[in-house]
């Protein structure tokens, strides 16, 4: 029963892969940001600015995949 279901994957696998990469990227940025704040709690302001910037850049890739489908 699994084989025909796998066989009929249709169309949007590139969106799935883009979402996978984007989510992993955002998670990595968050992981390193929390580690940095844990090591140096006073740097919270600077770290959060860089973290938000990195997350937004990593997340933008999935929007290209979603909205640039022909």
């Amino acid at each position, binding site marked *: 029963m699994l084989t025909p279901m796998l066989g009929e994957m249709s169309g949007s696998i590139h969106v799935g892969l883009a979402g996978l990469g984007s989510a992993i990227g955002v998670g990595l940025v968050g992981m390193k940001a929390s580690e940095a704040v844990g090591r140096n709690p006073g740097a919270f302001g600077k770290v959060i600015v860089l973290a938000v*910037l990195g997350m*937004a850049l990593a997340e933008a890739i999935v929007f*290209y995949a*979603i909205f640039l489908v022909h």
Partner: protein
Amino acid sequence: MLVTWIVASGVILFARFATRKIQEVPSGAQNFWEWLVEGLYGFLESIIGPGLVKKTFWFFATIFIFILATNWFGLVPGVGTIGWGVQGEHGFEVTRPLLRGGNADLNMTFAMAMIFFTCWMVWALQFSGVKGSFLHIFGPKGDSTGVIKYLMIVVFFAVGFLEMLSIAFRPISLSFRLYGNIFAGENLLEAMSNMVQHPAWAKVVFGALLPVPFYFMELLVGFIQAMVFMLLTSVFTALICTHEEEAGEVHH
């Protein structure tokens, strides 16, 4: 487009109202505006340096306040749900809303990104001139002597083309990021509202309760996307308006 005019006139009227009689020690609405403007100025000064921020602060602060106001205005109940429509099988379906979220339209975000691109080019040319900008993109950086120097010139010339491609792509990326976030947020809220269909009483009750946590998330996302747009545009400006000689002055 109507939403853009409403938001812009709302922000301008609020600012005018707050500064009707400027007092030495501010309070109330004037205090709010002063806090916002000073906070943004200090924040940007730490990122792009004092000289550049004097010239360009007007753009970044305006874009932040405007995008934030437009994003949050799209969350007001009634935007996107009141309008002209047709009578479908499941009741009345709105097909042409009266007011929509302003940034949920690619035209709007692309227009803002294009305005940034124009200002960016003007500032780059003002900062280094035509020859300076050309050297900034294509010229060799760092010092190297002898044969390596000629090799580096070739390498940096090729890298310059990649950099031009990256520069051309940045406005597209900016516009898609903002559009995707806000449009996806609107879709998410609508999907959450329409999730429970069958018992009529549950549809009304859960249709109003389920989106509530997502409304909070959309508030946060609206704020973050406005801040990210401002940060990215300011960082791009700082990158293209750097003096090359300062890197060599550190050694003595």
